[in-house]
């Protein structure tokens, strides 16, 4: 069973009734002969009594009296007229027609007799003749309200709403307090889908009878159609108060809330209905769907599962459960379930929904094929054709989509959704052309979209963008102002307006417009373009963190502006570098690297300079050196002003980095050369200190002990005040044979319990034949934290103990 809100509301329209109550028109007296006049007056009296006592029997007496009057005076036109009315009221229209024709034979021009002839003809079923006669009547006399009413009914039955509305309006004008007039009018308006007219006539009905149930419900429908959901709900509530047996009204109220997106309120109503009718499937389904729409996936899952427990074969609900899996991020599970259900079902709605789910999960081709099959099986189904077109739009195959939409429109010209889709597909197609730089095609396509009159504002804005890109700034502004005149706060207008503001460097104005845009609604309304514009504005205002966040949002919605992405990544990298967050720096540089070709020259210098430091940290010295040369060159190619924007004073000295890279890559001589040229100031002194230490260790390793001694001692002279510097110099001197009193020197360091010093003293003692003492220091070295080559030392100690005994240790 497929229930839709639309079908529910349509079903509710059974309340639309037109109550054709009998007409009573006050008789007028016409005097002829005295006898005839007496019969006539008698007839009038009977009519009055019939009305007063609501008793048709008196009309039978009236009939006899008028017949007697006519007999007494065959020319008494007024008696014919009243007889015509009485026969009509007694529903003896066959006789009524005969008597009226009889009267008209004598009094051809009597409009009153023509009037009653027309009414009786209508009652008798001779509608065409009745229409012809009554049309003549109203042409001659405007005061026969009932003629208008009947003509209105005839027109209504023929579907001629315009004529019906005119006739009923004329009737209402003459009988302003007759509720039937407004009932009839409201029916006409509703049939004609004239919401304003229906609202006006329903207002009249409710003014005359505030308890009119049907009018109250219909007013609810009218308000709903107007989008005044709260008002609609008020009328539905009022109607429900009038007739509590109509529990279906609760369903209508819940549905109204559902369709207006007030899901919490909808859930309350559906709950209320389910408490009265526990098996109300519609209420249960839409309540579950409300949870889904609210993102309450667990509740939705529970509610749909409950429905499934009642109706295990409800495949559509199973698909809803698959949708929940998709929303939970379990796409693989959702896809598997969807495909299984797709194979199980032959129902069109099931298949369509499965296709939609697959499309949402990125399987556009699959969705497309399903819809193709559905359309093939039912080519005249405009709804399915539009779904297929929707898939083509998703796949950016706009021409295919447009072809299908055009076919639908050819067959169903009034299909508003098809027109809207056509407009949308054209705008998307135009946007693609605009992005690819084909402005001529873009403009043509936007013009076509505009001609559909579906998205006037958006079409104008798009055309304005084209004019802007064609440097026709004046034309662009004209189109923009035209759009503003239609809807100043339309999202498209606000975005376009902010573009103009940006171009005119009025960032405050742009920010204000975008602020309004932001307040309009959620991300979908703001759109990727909206976030992009906000990022641009904030970058102008120097608010880079916010700009970065906003561009990220735009990118999250599929937006790609490589230049902006690269610039933002660079800015983030600069911030990370400043904060010393190296991982963050590397991440942002990697991102910027993807689009580095889009960077402006000044940003390229910044990017490369930061990349050098990243490469150095990653020990990619060769690449770093080469890039640093590039930085040097490209920095010098910048204008003086730009150089001043990059670094303080406009001077970028990369010699320090070069010296560092040489140091780290082992090109010590080259590093020393640069350092020497800088005469040892500040950072260079530290760099040389590091270099001397490195050189000392390097030459020591190569057994060039005298050279090592020189480097270590130079390090001390450069401010190397650490114990390590002095110790290393001492060891180098020892190995070079230059250390005075080595035993005492080494013993002094060993006293500080420095592992290397303990080891050095142990080795010295061992080499000097002081085995037992050496073993003691080897043991202390072993126990000290940070002792290197512990296994070797353990082995030495074991050997010594085996050979020399425990006293060795």
């Amino acid at each position, binding site marked *: 069973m497929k229930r839709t809100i639309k079908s529910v509301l349509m079903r509710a329209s059974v309340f639309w009734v037109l109550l054709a109550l009998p007409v009573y028109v006050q008789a007028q007296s016409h005097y002829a002969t005295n006898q005839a006049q007496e019969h006539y007056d008698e007839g009038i009296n009977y009519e009055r009594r019939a009305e007063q006592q609501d008793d048709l029997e008196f009309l039978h007496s009236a009939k006899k009296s008028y017949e007697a009057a006519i007999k007494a005076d065959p020319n008494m036109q007024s008696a014919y007229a009243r007889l015509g009315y009485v026969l009509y009221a007694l529903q003896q229209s066959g006789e009524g027609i005969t008597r009226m024709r009889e009267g008209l034979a004598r009094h051809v021009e009597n409009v009153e007799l023509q009037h009653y002839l027309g009414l009786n003809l209508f009652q008798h079923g001779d509608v065409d003749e009745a229409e012809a006669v009554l049309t003549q009547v109203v042409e001659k006399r405007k005061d026969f309200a009932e003629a208008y009413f009947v003509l209105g009914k005839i027109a209504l039955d023929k579907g001629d709403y315009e004529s019906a509305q005119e006739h009923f309006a004329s009737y209402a004008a003459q009988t302003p307090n007759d509720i039937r007039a407004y009932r009839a009018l409201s029916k006409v308006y509703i049939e004609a889908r004239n919401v304003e007219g229906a609202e006006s006539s329903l207002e009249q009905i409710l003014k005359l009878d505030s308890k009119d149930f049907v009018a109250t419900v219909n007013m609810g429908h009218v308000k709903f159609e107007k989008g005044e959901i709260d008002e609609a709900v008020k009328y539905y509530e009022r109607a429900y108060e009038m007739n509590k047996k109509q529990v279906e009204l609760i369903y209508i109220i819940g549905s109204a809330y559902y369709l207006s997106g007030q899901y919490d309120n909808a859930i309350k109503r559906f709950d209320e209905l389910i408490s009265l009718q526990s098996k109300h499937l519609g209420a249960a389904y839409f309540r579950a769907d409300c949870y889904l729409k609210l993102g309450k996936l667990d509740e939705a899952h529970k509610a749909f599962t409950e429905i499934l427990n009642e109706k295990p074969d409800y495949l559509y609900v199973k698909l809803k459960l698959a949708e929940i899996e998709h929303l939970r991020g379990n796409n693989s599970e959702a896809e598997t379930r969807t495909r299984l259900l797709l194979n199980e079902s032959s129902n069109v709605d099931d298949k369509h929904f499965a296709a939609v789910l697959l499309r949402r999960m990125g399987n556009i081709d699959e969705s497309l094929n399903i819809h193709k099959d559905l359309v093939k099986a039912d080519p005249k189904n405009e709804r399915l054709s539009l779904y297929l077109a929707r898939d083509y739009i998703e796949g950016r195959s706009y021409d295919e989509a447009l072809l299908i939409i055009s076919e639908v429109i050819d067959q169903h010209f009034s299909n508003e959704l098809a027109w809207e889709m056509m407009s949308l597909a054209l705008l998307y197609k135009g946007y693609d052309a605009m992005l690819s*730089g084909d402005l001529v095609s873009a403009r043509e396509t936007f013009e076509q979209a505009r001609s559909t009159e579906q998205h006037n504002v958006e079409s104008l804005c798009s055309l304005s963008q084209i004019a802007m890109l064609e440097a026709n700034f004046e034309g662009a502004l004209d189109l923009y102002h035209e759009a503003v005149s239609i809807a100043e706060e339309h999202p498209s207008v606000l975005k376009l307006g902010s573009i103009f503001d940006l171009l005119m460097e009025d960032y405050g104005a742009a920010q204000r417009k975008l602020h309004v845009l932001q307040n309009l609604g959620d991300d979908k309304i703001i759109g990727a373009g909206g976030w992009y514009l906000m990022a641009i504005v904030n970058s102008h205002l120097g608010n880079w963190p916010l700009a970065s966040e906003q561009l990220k949002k735009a990118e999250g919605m599929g937006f790609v502006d490589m230049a902006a992405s690269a610039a933002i990544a660079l800015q983030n990298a600069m911030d990370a570098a400043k904060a010393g967050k190296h991982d963050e720096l590397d991440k942002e540089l990697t991102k910027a690297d993807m689009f580095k070709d889009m960077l402006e020259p000044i940003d390229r210098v*910044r990017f490369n300079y930061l990349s050098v430091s990243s490469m150095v940290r990653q020990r990619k010295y060769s690449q770093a050196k080469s890039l640093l040369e590039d930085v040097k060159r490209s920095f010098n190619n910048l204008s003086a002003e730009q150089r001043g924007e990059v670094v303080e004073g406009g001077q970028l000295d990369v010699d320090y980095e070069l010296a560092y890279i040489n140091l780290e890559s082992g090109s010590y001589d080259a590093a020393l050369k640069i350092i020497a040229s800088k005469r040892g100031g500040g950072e260079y002194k530290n760099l040389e200190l590091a270099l001397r230490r490195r050189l000392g260790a390097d030459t020591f390793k190569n057994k060039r002990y005298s050279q090592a001694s020189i480097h270590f001692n130079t390090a001390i002279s450069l401010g190397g005040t650490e114990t390590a510097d002095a110790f290393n110099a001492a060891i180098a001197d020892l190995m070079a044979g230059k250390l005075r009193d080595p035993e005492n020197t080494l013993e002094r360091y060993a006293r500080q319990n420095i592992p290397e*010093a303990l080891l050095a003293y142990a080795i010295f003692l061992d080499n000097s034949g002081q085995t037992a003492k050496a073993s003691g220091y080897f043991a202390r070295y072993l126990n000290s934290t940070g002792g290197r080559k512990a296994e070797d030392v353990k082995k030495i100690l074991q050997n010594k103990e085996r050979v020399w*005994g425990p006293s060795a240790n």
Partner: protein
Amino acid sequence: MKRIVLLLLSLAFCVTPSLASAQSYVVAIFAPSIDFKDGAERNEYVSKVAAAFSRATGLSWNGQAFARASDFESARANVDVVIVDSDYYISKLSGLTPLAMLSGSSGVSRRMHLIAKKGASDKLYNYRGKRLVLVSGSGQNKKFLEATALANEASLGSYFGSVDEARDVRSALNAVELGKADLTLAYDGYASGFTNVYTSPSVGLPVIALSSSRISGATLEKLKSAAKGLGISASSIISSSSAYSAGEAANMRNASSSQKTTMSYALMDTQTTRVQVYSTPLLPKRNPLTLNPAMVYTGPTLNSLDKKLDRKL
């Protein structure tokens, strides 16, 4: 006492090599590290080997056993196949064609023990200045002991009171047992009844090698095959023969050449050897993002359309 008398008798017995006839081939054994009970047992072993070679090659083979290196060296010119201690083979007989190695329960190599008289100390450092007796041969065993047992901490000469040589392992074991020496070196399996002072790394067992050029071609192949497949027991540790392993044969020499475990002077790490590379701070960016008006979509979104389409469901 009876055992000692027999041993002394065996020392006195000199095996006289028999002359090989013109058509005969000779296999000779000189393996002083292998403990044959006496000369007769040594002769019996080599005779069995000769018989096996005869069977395998179809030639006539005779066995000869030598107790002294000098006798063995003198007779070598007439010997076709030798069975010698692996250290002797490696040090003295390079250039021969190895055929196989004798093997026992632990394969073609075996640990050795520095052993003392039963009941004596098992600590090496207690034998400083004491008497060491070693089997005479290649002399490799001295270097081997210095490098392994003494870990090159001292030379044998400086560490022990005396270092003497015995003709073979049986003589060395007797010397320790009789108190004529305090320590000796012998394969694992011969240390029973002694105190183990030190266990060495594994050392190769004797090598079987081709010593003449008289055998070649198919006969040589047969001989090789026979040499590797000897199922003849000897002493208490030899049970068969196996393929030659150059590595195992050279174990003693390799271990002998190891150096004293020493440490070299290490430098201390300095804390500030690494310096910061990023030196020039970049100024904050002043150039904003560049607006691309074409990037901004001002059309309607699919979202509103989808809502309407979904209502059709």
